[in-house]
Protein backbone atom coordinates (compact mmCIF):
# COMPACT_ATOMS: atom_id res chain seq x y z
CA UNK A 1 0.00 0.00 0.00
CA UNK A 2 1.04 3.54 -0.45
CA UNK A 3 3.58 4.64 2.08
CA UNK A 4 5.94 7.48 2.80
CA UNK A 5 9.38 7.63 4.35
CA UNK A 6 9.43 9.32 7.72
CA UNK A 7 12.60 10.22 9.56
CA UNK A 8 13.19 9.26 13.18
CA UNK A 9 12.81 12.84 14.40
CA UNK A 10 9.49 13.19 12.61
CA UNK A 11 8.34 9.91 14.11
CA UNK A 12 9.13 11.09 17.63
CA UNK A 13 7.30 14.36 16.93
CA UNK A 14 4.20 12.58 15.66
CA UNK A 15 4.20 10.05 18.49
CA UNK A 16 4.54 12.72 21.17
CA UNK A 17 1.70 14.63 19.57
CA UNK A 18 -0.54 11.57 19.57
CA UNK A 19 0.31 10.94 23.22
CA UNK A 20 -1.06 14.41 24.03
CA UNK A 21 -4.15 13.93 21.84
CA UNK A 22 -2.99 16.50 19.34
CA UNK A 23 -2.09 15.35 15.90
CA UNK A 24 0.08 17.07 13.33
CA UNK A 25 -2.92 18.41 11.42
CA UNK A 26 -4.59 19.63 14.60
CA UNK A 27 -7.06 16.78 15.01
CA UNK A 28 -7.71 14.78 18.15
CA UNK A 29 -7.10 11.04 18.19
CA UNK A 30 -10.67 10.10 17.31
CA UNK A 31 -11.37 12.73 14.67
CA UNK A 32 -11.82 12.17 11.00
CA UNK A 33 -10.42 14.49 8.39
CA UNK A 34 -12.69 16.66 6.29
CA UNK A 35 -14.92 14.51 4.14
CA UNK A 36 -16.72 15.31 0.90
CA UNK A 37 -19.42 12.98 -0.35
CA UNK A 38 -21.22 13.26 -3.63
CA UNK A 39 -23.59 10.69 -5.07
CA UNK A 40 -24.90 10.03 -8.56
CA UNK A 41 -21.71 11.17 -10.25
CA UNK A 42 -21.41 8.62 -13.03
CA UNK A 43 -24.47 8.53 -15.24
CA UNK A 44 -24.03 5.10 -16.81
CA UNK A 45 -24.06 3.20 -13.52
CA UNK A 46 -27.05 2.24 -11.43
CA UNK A 47 -25.56 3.96 -8.44
CA UNK A 48 -22.37 5.83 -7.78
CA UNK A 49 -20.61 7.95 -5.22
CA UNK A 50 -17.40 9.82 -4.84
CA UNK A 51 -15.78 10.33 -1.48
CA UNK A 52 -12.77 12.43 -0.61
CA UNK A 53 -11.27 11.97 2.80
CA UNK A 54 -8.31 14.27 3.25
CA UNK A 55 -6.52 13.76 -0.04
CA UNK A 56 -7.79 10.20 -0.52
CA UNK A 57 -10.18 10.15 -3.44
CA UNK A 58 -12.44 7.20 -4.10
CA UNK A 59 -15.01 6.65 -6.82
CA UNK A 60 -17.47 3.78 -6.50
CA UNK A 61 -19.88 2.63 -9.17
CA UNK A 62 -22.55 -0.02 -8.72
CA UNK A 63 -23.97 -1.92 -11.66
CA UNK A 64 -26.86 -4.33 -11.38
CA UNK A 65 -26.98 -7.25 -13.75
CA UNK A 66 -29.10 -10.34 -13.88
CA UNK A 67 -27.23 -13.53 -13.07
CA UNK A 68 -27.67 -17.02 -11.76
CA UNK A 69 -27.83 -17.50 -7.99
CA UNK A 70 -25.15 -19.60 -6.34
CA UNK A 71 -26.01 -23.26 -5.95
CA UNK A 72 -25.72 -23.23 -2.16
CA UNK A 73 -28.01 -20.24 -1.65
CA UNK A 74 -30.56 -20.34 -4.47
CA UNK A 75 -32.79 -17.64 -2.98
CA UNK A 76 -30.19 -14.90 -2.70
CA UNK A 77 -28.42 -12.49 -4.96
CA UNK A 78 -24.84 -11.50 -4.39
CA UNK A 79 -22.29 -8.71 -4.65
CA UNK A 80 -19.05 -8.73 -6.58
CA UNK A 81 -16.21 -6.39 -5.79
CA UNK A 82 -13.50 -5.12 -7.99
CA UNK A 83 -10.92 -2.61 -6.84
CA UNK A 84 -8.97 -0.82 -9.49
CA UNK A 85 -5.80 0.73 -8.18
CA UNK A 86 -5.04 3.29 -10.80
CA UNK A 87 -1.40 4.19 -11.26
CA UNK A 88 -2.59 7.78 -10.98
CA UNK A 89 -3.24 7.23 -7.29
CA UNK A 90 0.34 6.52 -6.40
CA UNK A 91 3.31 5.45 -8.51
CA UNK A 92 3.54 2.19 -6.55
CA UNK A 93 0.44 0.90 -8.27
CA UNK A 94 2.17 0.71 -11.60
CA UNK A 95 2.27 -2.75 -13.12
CA UNK A 96 1.50 -5.73 -10.93
CA UNK A 97 1.77 -3.90 -7.62
CA UNK A 98 -1.64 -2.35 -7.94
CA UNK A 99 -3.21 -5.52 -9.20
CA UNK A 100 -2.24 -7.52 -6.13
CA UNK A 101 -3.37 -4.84 -3.72
CA UNK A 102 -6.62 -4.64 -5.66
CA UNK A 103 -7.27 -8.35 -5.20
CA UNK A 104 -6.50 -8.16 -1.50
CA UNK A 105 -8.72 -5.14 -1.03
CA UNK A 106 -11.61 -6.69 -2.91
CA UNK A 107 -11.29 -9.93 -0.92
CA UNK A 108 -11.58 -7.97 2.30
CA UNK A 109 -14.51 -5.91 0.99
CA UNK A 110 -16.23 -9.13 0.00
CA UNK A 111 -15.91 -10.42 3.56
CA UNK A 112 -17.19 -7.15 5.01
CA UNK A 113 -20.12 -6.43 2.74
CA UNK A 114 -21.31 -9.62 1.12
CA UNK A 115 -23.23 -11.11 4.02
CA UNK A 116 -26.74 -11.16 5.22
CA UNK A 117 -26.06 -8.60 7.90
CA UNK A 118 -25.27 -5.72 5.63
CA UNK A 119 -27.74 -6.07 2.81
CA UNK A 120 -30.83 -8.21 2.56
CA UNK A 121 -29.48 -10.49 -0.14
CA UNK A 122 -32.87 -12.16 -0.46
CA UNK A 123 -34.31 -8.93 -1.82
CA UNK A 124 -31.93 -9.31 -4.76
CA UNK A 125 -33.50 -12.61 -5.74
CA UNK A 126 -35.77 -12.53 -8.77
CA UNK A 127 -36.64 -16.16 -9.20
CA UNK A 128 -35.13 -18.70 -6.79
CA UNK A 129 -32.53 -20.96 -8.35
CA UNK A 130 -32.74 -19.25 -11.72
CA UNK A 131 -32.28 -15.51 -11.69
CA UNK A 132 -31.03 -12.96 -9.23
CA UNK A 133 -29.51 -9.52 -9.24
CA UNK A 134 -25.77 -9.38 -9.08
CA UNK A 135 -24.41 -6.07 -7.89
CA UNK A 136 -21.02 -5.33 -9.35
CA UNK A 137 -19.32 -2.85 -7.07
CA UNK A 138 -16.39 -1.23 -8.83
CA UNK A 139 -14.05 0.78 -6.67
CA UNK A 140 -11.63 3.15 -8.31
CA UNK A 141 -8.82 4.61 -6.26
CA UNK A 142 -8.06 8.02 -7.69
CA UNK A 143 -5.71 9.23 -5.03
CA UNK A 144 -4.26 7.57 -1.95
CA UNK A 145 -3.62 9.52 1.19
CA UNK A 146 -4.04 6.92 3.89
CA UNK A 147 -7.04 5.26 5.43
CA UNK A 148 -8.30 3.70 2.24
CA UNK A 149 -10.63 1.20 3.86
CA UNK A 150 -12.70 3.76 5.75
CA UNK A 151 -13.10 5.95 2.71
CA UNK A 152 -13.97 2.99 0.49
CA UNK A 153 -16.59 1.71 2.92
CA UNK A 154 -18.27 5.11 3.14
CA UNK A 155 -18.21 5.43 -0.63
CA UNK A 156 -19.73 1.97 -1.03
CA UNK A 157 -22.46 2.74 1.45
CA UNK A 158 -23.26 5.98 -0.35
CA UNK A 159 -23.21 4.30 -3.75
CA UNK A 160 -25.50 1.50 -2.57
CA UNK A 161 -27.83 4.14 -1.14
CA UNK A 162 -27.86 5.78 -4.53
CA UNK A 163 -28.42 2.49 -6.38
CA UNK A 164 -31.68 2.03 -8.19
CA UNK A 165 -32.49 -1.41 -9.48
CA UNK A 166 -35.07 -1.56 -12.27
CA UNK A 167 -38.25 -3.39 -11.41
CA UNK A 168 -38.84 -6.67 -13.19
CA UNK A 169 -41.94 -8.68 -13.83
CA UNK A 170 -41.95 -12.40 -14.25
CA UNK A 171 -44.58 -13.56 -16.66
CA UNK A 172 -45.40 -17.19 -17.17
CA UNK A 173 -46.49 -18.41 -20.57
CA UNK A 174 -48.80 -21.33 -21.28
CA UNK A 175 -46.07 -23.99 -21.12
CA UNK A 176 -44.84 -22.82 -17.74
CA UNK A 177 -41.79 -21.12 -19.21
CA UNK A 178 -40.81 -17.97 -17.39
CA UNK A 179 -39.96 -14.72 -18.99
CA UNK A 180 -38.43 -11.71 -17.39
CA UNK A 181 -39.67 -8.33 -18.39
CA UNK A 182 -38.02 -5.11 -17.46
CA UNK A 183 -40.23 -2.23 -16.55
CA UNK A 184 -40.46 0.39 -19.30
CA UNK A 185 -40.54 3.30 -16.91
CA UNK A 186 -36.98 4.25 -15.98
CA UNK A 187 -38.23 5.72 -12.71
CA UNK A 188 -39.91 2.48 -11.69
CA UNK A 189 -37.10 1.24 -9.46
CA UNK A 190 -36.35 -0.63 -6.30
CA UNK A 191 -34.03 0.87 -3.72
CA UNK A 192 -31.81 -1.05 -1.38
CA UNK A 193 -32.07 -0.83 2.35
CA UNK A 194 -28.60 0.31 3.30
CA UNK A 195 -29.28 0.99 6.95
CA UNK A 196 -27.34 -2.05 8.06
CA UNK A 197 -24.38 -1.63 5.72
CA UNK A 198 -21.34 -1.36 7.96
CA UNK A 199 -18.68 1.30 7.89
CA UNK A 200 -15.06 0.39 8.33
CA UNK A 201 -13.06 2.10 11.04
CA UNK A 202 -9.32 1.56 10.90
CA UNK A 203 -7.44 2.24 14.09
CA UNK A 204 -3.70 2.73 13.95
CA UNK A 205 -1.68 2.01 17.02
CA UNK A 206 0.77 4.86 17.41
CA UNK A 207 2.93 4.63 20.51
CA UNK A 208 0.69 3.77 23.42
CA UNK A 209 -2.45 5.22 21.87
CA UNK A 210 -4.45 4.62 18.75
CA UNK A 211 -5.72 7.07 16.17
CA UNK A 212 -8.66 7.08 13.79
CA UNK A 213 -8.22 7.99 10.13
CA UNK A 214 -4.43 7.93 10.09
CA UNK A 215 -2.52 9.88 7.50
CA UNK A 216 0.34 8.23 5.66
CA UNK A 217 2.84 9.82 8.05
CA UNK A 218 1.03 8.45 11.05
CA UNK A 219 0.72 5.08 9.41
CA UNK A 220 4.49 4.99 8.99
CA UNK A 221 4.86 5.41 12.76
CA UNK A 222 2.58 2.52 13.53
CA UNK A 223 3.40 -1.18 13.41
CA UNK A 224 -0.09 -2.58 13.62
CA UNK A 225 -3.60 -1.43 12.93
CA UNK A 226 -6.99 -2.89 13.52
CA UNK A 227 -9.75 -2.78 10.95
CA UNK A 228 -13.27 -2.94 12.34
CA UNK A 229 -16.52 -3.00 10.41
CA UNK A 230 -19.26 -1.51 12.52
CA UNK A 231 -23.00 -1.31 11.83
CA UNK A 232 -25.27 1.52 12.89
CA UNK A 233 -26.35 -0.52 15.90
CA UNK A 234 -22.76 -0.80 17.02
CA UNK A 235 -22.38 -4.46 16.05
CA UNK A 236 -18.96 -5.50 14.89
CA UNK A 237 -19.13 -7.54 11.69
CA UNK A 238 -15.52 -7.89 10.73
CA UNK A 239 -12.17 -7.49 12.42
CA UNK A 240 -8.75 -7.79 10.87
CA UNK A 241 -5.37 -7.06 12.28
CA UNK A 242 -3.20 -5.48 9.61
CA UNK A 243 0.48 -4.70 9.51
CA UNK A 244 3.56 -6.49 10.72
CA UNK A 245 3.35 -5.88 14.45
CA UNK A 246 1.44 -7.44 17.29
CA UNK A 247 -0.97 -5.96 19.80
CA UNK A 248 -1.42 -6.67 23.46
CA UNK A 249 -4.85 -7.88 24.56
CA UNK A 250 -5.53 -4.71 26.56
CA UNK A 251 -5.15 -2.42 23.59
CA UNK A 252 -7.26 -4.73 21.44
CA UNK A 253 -10.22 -4.30 23.75
CA UNK A 254 -9.58 -0.56 23.95
CA UNK A 255 -9.39 -0.32 20.20
CA UNK A 256 -12.57 -2.32 19.65
CA UNK A 257 -14.29 -0.07 22.13
CA UNK A 258 -13.14 3.09 20.34
CA UNK A 259 -13.87 1.58 16.95
CA UNK A 260 -17.39 0.74 17.94
CA UNK A 261 -18.02 4.20 19.34
CA UNK A 262 -16.56 6.05 16.38
CA UNK A 263 -18.19 3.73 13.84
CA UNK A 264 -21.59 3.97 15.44
CA UNK A 265 -21.39 7.75 15.49
CA UNK A 266 -20.46 7.81 11.82
CA UNK A 267 -23.67 6.28 10.52
CA UNK A 268 -26.35 8.76 11.56
CA UNK A 269 -24.72 11.91 10.08
CA UNK A 270 -23.85 9.97 6.94
CA UNK A 271 -27.42 8.87 6.38
CA UNK A 272 -28.71 12.37 7.12
CA UNK A 273 -26.29 13.80 4.65
CA UNK A 274 -27.21 11.31 1.95
CA UNK A 275 -30.91 11.99 2.42
CA UNK A 276 -30.37 15.69 2.40
CA UNK A 277 -28.35 15.55 -0.77
CA UNK A 278 -31.03 13.49 -2.44
CA UNK A 279 -33.64 15.95 -1.28
CA UNK A 280 -31.89 18.67 -3.23
CA UNK A 281 -32.71 16.81 -6.42
CA UNK A 282 -31.31 18.16 -9.64
CA UNK A 283 -30.66 21.59 -8.20
CA UNK A 284 -27.78 20.56 -6.02
CA UNK A 285 -24.50 22.11 -6.61
CA UNK A 286 -22.19 19.75 -8.43
CA UNK A 287 -18.72 19.65 -7.04
CA UNK A 288 -17.47 17.39 -9.78
CA UNK A 289 -13.96 16.23 -10.35
CA UNK A 290 -12.48 19.53 -11.39
CA UNK A 291 -12.94 21.71 -8.42
Amino acid at each position, binding site marked *: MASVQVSEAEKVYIMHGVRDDLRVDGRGCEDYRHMVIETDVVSNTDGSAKVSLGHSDILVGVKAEIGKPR*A*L*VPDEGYLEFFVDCSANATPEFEGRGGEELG*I*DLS*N*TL*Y*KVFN*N*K*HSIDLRSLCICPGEHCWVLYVDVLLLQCDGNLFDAISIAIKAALFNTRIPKVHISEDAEGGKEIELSDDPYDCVRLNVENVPCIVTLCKVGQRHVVDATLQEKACSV*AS*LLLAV*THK*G*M*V*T*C*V*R*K*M*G*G*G*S*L*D*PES*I*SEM*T*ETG*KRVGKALHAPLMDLLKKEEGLGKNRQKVGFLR
Partner: protein
Amino acid sequence: MPTDTKRLRGPEESQSPMLFLPPDAQILKASSRDGSRGHADVRPIFARCGLVSQAKGSAYLEAGNTKIICSVYGPRETERKDETDMKSGRLLCDFRLAPFSCLKRGAWIQGNEERDLSVALIESLQPGVCLHRYPRSQIEINVVVLENDGSILAHAVTCASIALADAGIEMYDVVLGCTLRQDGDTCLVDPTFAEESGNWLGGYGENQGRVTVALLPNFNQVSGLHADGEMREDTLTEAVRTCMDGCHKLYPVVQHALLRAVKRKAPPSVK
Protein backbone atom coordinates in the same frame (compact mmCIF):
# COMPACT_ATOMS: atom_id res chain seq x y z
CA MET B 1 -13.60 -18.39 -15.60
CA PRO B 2 -10.20 -18.88 -17.16
CA THR B 3 -9.85 -22.31 -18.71
CA ASP B 4 -7.09 -24.38 -17.32
CA THR B 5 -5.13 -25.70 -20.25
CA LYS B 6 -2.34 -27.13 -18.16
CA ARG B 7 -4.46 -29.68 -16.38
CA LEU B 8 -6.65 -32.53 -17.50
CA ARG B 9 -10.19 -31.40 -17.45
CA GLY B 10 -13.27 -33.43 -16.97
CA PRO B 11 -16.71 -32.65 -18.27
CA GLU B 12 -17.76 -29.00 -18.55
CA GLU B 13 -20.08 -29.30 -15.62
CA SER B 14 -20.37 -31.78 -12.81
CA GLN B 15 -22.22 -31.64 -9.56
CA SER B 16 -21.54 -32.96 -6.13
CA PRO B 17 -23.90 -35.80 -5.15
CA MET B 18 -24.71 -33.75 -2.04
CA LEU B 19 -26.89 -31.50 -4.17
CA PHE B 20 -29.17 -34.39 -5.01
CA LEU B 21 -30.04 -35.19 -1.46
CA PRO B 22 -33.62 -34.72 -0.43
CA PRO B 23 -33.78 -31.23 1.07
CA ASP B 24 -34.64 -32.39 4.55
CA ALA B 25 -31.62 -34.65 4.88
CA GLN B 26 -28.81 -33.00 6.77
CA ILE B 27 -25.27 -33.90 5.96
CA LEU B 28 -23.72 -31.68 8.53
CA LYS B 29 -24.97 -32.38 11.94
CA ALA B 30 -23.82 -29.74 14.34
CA SER B 31 -23.05 -31.87 17.30
CA SER B 32 -23.70 -30.47 20.72
CA ARG B 33 -20.35 -31.83 21.88
CA ASP B 34 -21.98 -34.11 24.36
CA GLY B 35 -19.57 -35.92 26.59
CA SER B 36 -16.20 -36.04 24.95
CA ARG B 37 -15.40 -32.36 24.66
CA GLY B 38 -16.48 -29.28 26.56
CA HIS B 39 -17.31 -26.03 24.78
CA ALA B 40 -14.04 -24.43 25.82
CA ASP B 41 -11.86 -27.44 25.01
CA VAL B 42 -9.53 -27.54 22.04
CA ARG B 43 -9.17 -30.79 20.17
CA PRO B 44 -6.03 -32.67 21.12
CA ILE B 45 -3.42 -31.88 18.52
CA PHE B 46 -0.69 -34.03 17.09
CA ALA B 47 2.31 -32.17 15.78
CA ARG B 48 5.53 -33.43 14.30
CA CYS B 49 8.47 -31.77 12.56
CA GLY B 50 10.63 -32.72 9.67
CA LEU B 51 8.40 -34.86 7.49
CA VAL B 52 9.31 -33.22 4.20
CA SER B 53 12.85 -34.33 3.45
CA GLN B 54 13.48 -31.71 0.78
CA ALA B 55 12.53 -28.70 2.89
CA LYS B 56 14.61 -26.63 5.26
CA GLY B 57 11.95 -27.17 7.86
CA SER B 58 8.53 -28.74 7.89
CA ALA B 59 5.68 -29.67 10.17
CA TYR B 60 2.57 -31.76 10.11
CA LEU B 61 -0.34 -31.01 12.37
CA GLU B 62 -3.49 -32.92 13.06
CA ALA B 63 -6.35 -31.66 15.19
CA GLY B 64 -9.29 -34.00 15.12
CA ASN B 65 -9.78 -34.59 11.43
CA THR B 66 -8.13 -31.37 10.31
CA LYS B 67 -4.83 -32.26 8.69
CA ILE B 68 -2.29 -29.66 7.65
CA ILE B 69 1.22 -30.00 6.31
CA CYS B 70 3.64 -27.10 5.97
CA SER B 71 7.15 -26.72 4.63
CA VAL B 72 9.56 -23.81 4.79
CA TYR B 73 12.26 -22.99 2.25
CA GLY B 74 14.83 -20.26 2.57
CA PRO B 75 16.00 -17.75 3.44
CA ARG B 76 17.10 -17.13 -0.10
CA GLU B 77 17.69 -14.03 -2.15
CA THR B 78 14.53 -12.07 -2.75
CA GLU B 79 13.03 -12.26 -6.21
CA ARG B 80 11.49 -8.84 -6.08
CA LYS B 81 14.17 -6.25 -6.62
CA ASP B 82 11.90 -3.23 -6.69
CA GLU B 83 11.08 -3.53 -3.03
CA THR B 84 11.98 -0.30 -1.28
CA ASP B 85 12.50 -1.85 2.11
CA MET B 86 15.46 -4.16 1.68
CA LYS B 87 16.60 -3.94 5.27
CA SER B 88 14.35 -6.72 6.42
CA GLY B 89 13.31 -10.03 4.91
CA ARG B 90 9.94 -10.96 3.52
CA LEU B 91 7.64 -13.84 4.21
CA LEU B 92 5.98 -15.45 1.21
CA CYS B 93 3.14 -17.85 1.51
CA ASP B 94 1.53 -20.38 -0.76
CA PHE B 95 -1.63 -21.64 0.89
CA ARG B 96 -3.51 -24.46 -0.74
CA LEU B 97 -6.57 -26.45 0.05
CA ALA B 98 -6.19 -29.84 -1.57
CA PRO B 99 -9.08 -30.43 -4.00
CA PHE B 100 -10.29 -33.34 -1.90
CA SER B 101 -9.94 -31.55 1.43
CA CYS B 102 -13.42 -30.10 1.62
CA LEU B 103 -16.87 -31.56 1.47
CA LYS B 104 -17.28 -30.12 -1.98
CA ARG B 105 -14.46 -30.64 -4.41
CA GLY B 106 -12.32 -27.54 -4.79
CA ALA B 107 -10.68 -26.24 -7.91
CA TRP B 108 -6.96 -26.49 -8.53
CA ILE B 109 -6.66 -22.82 -9.31
CA GLN B 110 -5.99 -20.82 -6.19
CA GLY B 111 -9.23 -19.21 -5.19
CA ASN B 112 -10.01 -16.08 -3.24
CA GLU B 113 -10.34 -18.02 -0.03
CA GLU B 114 -6.84 -19.41 -0.33
CA ARG B 115 -5.42 -15.99 -1.14
CA ASP B 116 -7.19 -14.52 1.83
CA LEU B 117 -5.88 -17.27 4.08
CA SER B 118 -2.32 -16.77 2.91
CA VAL B 119 -2.48 -13.01 3.58
CA ALA B 120 -3.92 -13.69 7.02
CA LEU B 121 -1.24 -16.29 7.70
CA ILE B 122 1.60 -13.94 6.80
CA GLU B 123 0.20 -11.13 8.95
CA SER B 124 -0.16 -13.49 11.89
CA LEU B 125 3.34 -14.93 11.60
CA GLN B 126 5.26 -11.77 10.79
CA PRO B 127 5.40 -10.35 14.33
CA GLY B 128 6.94 -13.59 15.55
CA VAL B 129 9.81 -13.77 13.05
CA CYS B 130 13.03 -11.75 13.40
CA LEU B 131 12.81 -10.52 9.84
CA HIS B 132 15.51 -7.86 10.34
CA ARG B 133 18.00 -10.73 10.60
CA TYR B 134 17.34 -11.65 6.99
CA PRO B 135 17.95 -8.58 4.85
CA ARG B 136 17.37 -8.87 1.12
CA SER B 137 15.96 -12.34 1.48
CA GLN B 138 12.68 -14.15 1.39
CA ILE B 139 11.37 -17.04 3.40
CA GLU B 140 8.82 -19.24 1.68
CA ILE B 141 6.07 -20.87 3.66
CA ASN B 142 4.03 -23.51 1.83
CA VAL B 143 0.89 -24.83 3.43
CA VAL B 144 -1.33 -27.60 2.15
CA VAL B 145 -4.55 -28.46 3.90
CA LEU B 146 -5.14 -32.16 3.36
CA GLU B 147 -8.42 -32.30 5.19
CA ASN B 148 -10.55 -29.42 6.36
CA ASP B 149 -12.49 -30.18 9.48
CA GLY B 150 -12.70 -26.65 10.78
CA SER B 151 -10.35 -24.02 12.22
CA ILE B 152 -7.88 -24.32 9.37
CA LEU B 153 -6.44 -20.82 9.67
CA ALA B 154 -5.66 -21.23 13.35
CA HIS B 155 -4.03 -24.60 12.91
CA ALA B 156 -2.16 -23.45 9.82
CA VAL B 157 -0.65 -20.64 11.89
CA THR B 158 0.51 -23.07 14.57
CA CYS B 159 1.77 -25.55 11.99
CA ALA B 160 3.66 -22.89 10.01
CA SER B 161 5.33 -21.49 13.11
CA ILE B 162 6.54 -24.99 14.06
CA ALA B 163 7.89 -25.40 10.54
CA LEU B 164 9.66 -22.02 10.74
CA ALA B 165 11.26 -23.03 14.01
CA ASP B 166 12.23 -26.39 12.54
CA ALA B 167 13.88 -24.57 9.65
CA GLY B 168 16.05 -22.70 12.11
CA ILE B 169 14.58 -19.31 11.28
CA GLU B 170 15.21 -16.90 14.13
CA MET B 171 12.02 -16.09 15.95
CA TYR B 172 10.95 -14.04 18.94
CA ASP B 173 8.38 -16.61 19.89
CA VAL B 174 6.29 -19.35 18.36
CA VAL B 175 2.89 -18.29 17.08
CA LEU B 176 -0.14 -20.25 18.18
CA GLY B 177 -3.58 -20.04 16.65
CA CYS B 178 -7.05 -20.71 17.97
CA THR B 179 -10.51 -20.29 16.47
CA LEU B 180 -13.80 -19.76 18.22
CA ARG B 181 -17.32 -20.01 16.91
CA GLN B 182 -19.82 -17.78 18.62
CA ASP B 183 -23.39 -18.96 18.32
CA GLY B 184 -25.72 -16.80 20.35
CA ASP B 185 -24.60 -17.16 23.92
CA THR B 186 -22.63 -20.34 23.46
CA CYS B 187 -19.13 -20.27 22.16
CA LEU B 188 -17.38 -23.30 20.79
CA VAL B 189 -13.61 -23.28 20.87
CA ASP B 190 -11.74 -24.98 18.01
CA PRO B 191 -14.90 -25.76 16.02
CA THR B 192 -15.15 -28.64 13.56
CA PHE B 193 -16.28 -27.97 10.02
CA ALA B 194 -19.86 -28.86 10.92
CA GLU B 195 -19.83 -26.55 13.91
CA GLU B 196 -18.17 -23.82 11.90
CA SER B 197 -20.75 -23.75 9.14
CA GLY B 198 -23.68 -25.11 11.22
CA ASN B 199 -26.54 -22.66 11.27
CA TRP B 200 -24.25 -20.14 9.66
CA LEU B 201 -25.95 -20.99 6.39
CA GLY B 202 -29.35 -21.03 7.99
CA GLY B 203 -30.83 -18.05 9.71
CA TYR B 204 -28.45 -15.54 11.17
CA GLY B 205 -29.13 -14.59 14.71
CA GLU B 206 -27.58 -12.01 16.87
CA ASN B 207 -24.09 -12.66 18.08
CA GLN B 208 -23.05 -15.07 15.38
CA GLY B 209 -19.51 -15.11 14.34
CA ARG B 210 -16.14 -16.67 14.06
CA VAL B 211 -12.98 -15.33 15.64
CA THR B 212 -9.43 -16.48 14.98
CA VAL B 213 -6.61 -15.27 17.17
CA ALA B 214 -2.88 -15.78 16.72
CA LEU B 215 -0.85 -15.39 19.88
CA LEU B 216 2.77 -15.04 20.88
CA PRO B 217 2.50 -16.99 24.14
CA ASN B 218 5.63 -15.72 25.89
CA PHE B 219 4.90 -12.06 25.24
CA ASN B 220 1.17 -12.50 25.59
CA GLN B 221 0.77 -10.42 22.45
CA VAL B 222 -1.87 -10.95 19.81
CA SER B 223 -0.21 -11.16 16.41
CA GLY B 224 -3.28 -11.88 14.35
CA LEU B 225 -6.97 -11.22 14.73
CA HIS B 226 -9.63 -12.22 12.26
CA ALA B 227 -13.31 -11.98 12.97
CA ASP B 228 -16.39 -12.32 10.81
CA GLY B 229 -20.06 -12.35 11.59
CA GLU B 230 -22.05 -9.99 13.75
CA MET B 231 -21.09 -9.61 17.34
CA ARG B 232 -21.45 -7.17 20.15
CA GLU B 233 -18.25 -5.52 21.18
CA ASP B 234 -18.19 -7.12 24.63
CA THR B 235 -18.78 -10.57 23.12
CA LEU B 236 -15.90 -9.96 20.78
CA THR B 237 -13.55 -8.93 23.57
CA GLU B 238 -14.58 -11.97 25.57
CA ALA B 239 -14.10 -14.21 22.50
CA VAL B 240 -10.58 -12.89 22.00
CA ARG B 241 -9.78 -13.72 25.60
CA THR B 242 -11.20 -17.24 25.30
CA CYS B 243 -9.17 -17.81 22.15
CA MET B 244 -6.03 -16.73 23.94
CA ASP B 245 -6.68 -19.33 26.63
CA GLY B 246 -7.18 -21.88 23.88
CA CYS B 247 -3.81 -20.94 22.36
CA HIS B 248 -2.02 -21.40 25.67
CA LYS B 249 -3.36 -24.94 25.88
CA LEU B 250 -1.54 -25.84 22.68
CA TYR B 251 1.81 -24.57 23.86
CA PRO B 252 3.06 -27.74 25.66
CA VAL B 253 2.38 -29.91 22.60
CA VAL B 254 4.19 -27.50 20.31
CA GLN B 255 7.13 -27.29 22.69
CA HIS B 256 7.30 -31.05 22.89
CA ALA B 257 7.27 -31.43 19.10
CA LEU B 258 10.09 -28.90 18.73
CA LEU B 259 12.17 -30.46 21.47
CA ARG B 260 11.83 -33.83 19.83
CA ALA B 261 12.97 -32.42 16.50
CA VAL B 262 15.98 -30.73 18.06
CA LYS B 263 16.98 -33.89 19.93
CA ARG B 264 16.80 -35.90 16.76
CA LYS B 265 18.87 -33.44 14.79
CA ALA B 266 21.57 -33.14 17.44
CA PRO B 267 21.69 -36.36 19.43
CA PRO B 268 23.16 -35.78 22.89
CA SER B 269 26.84 -36.64 22.91
CA VAL B 270 27.61 -39.92 24.61
CA LYS B 271 30.16 -39.57 27.35
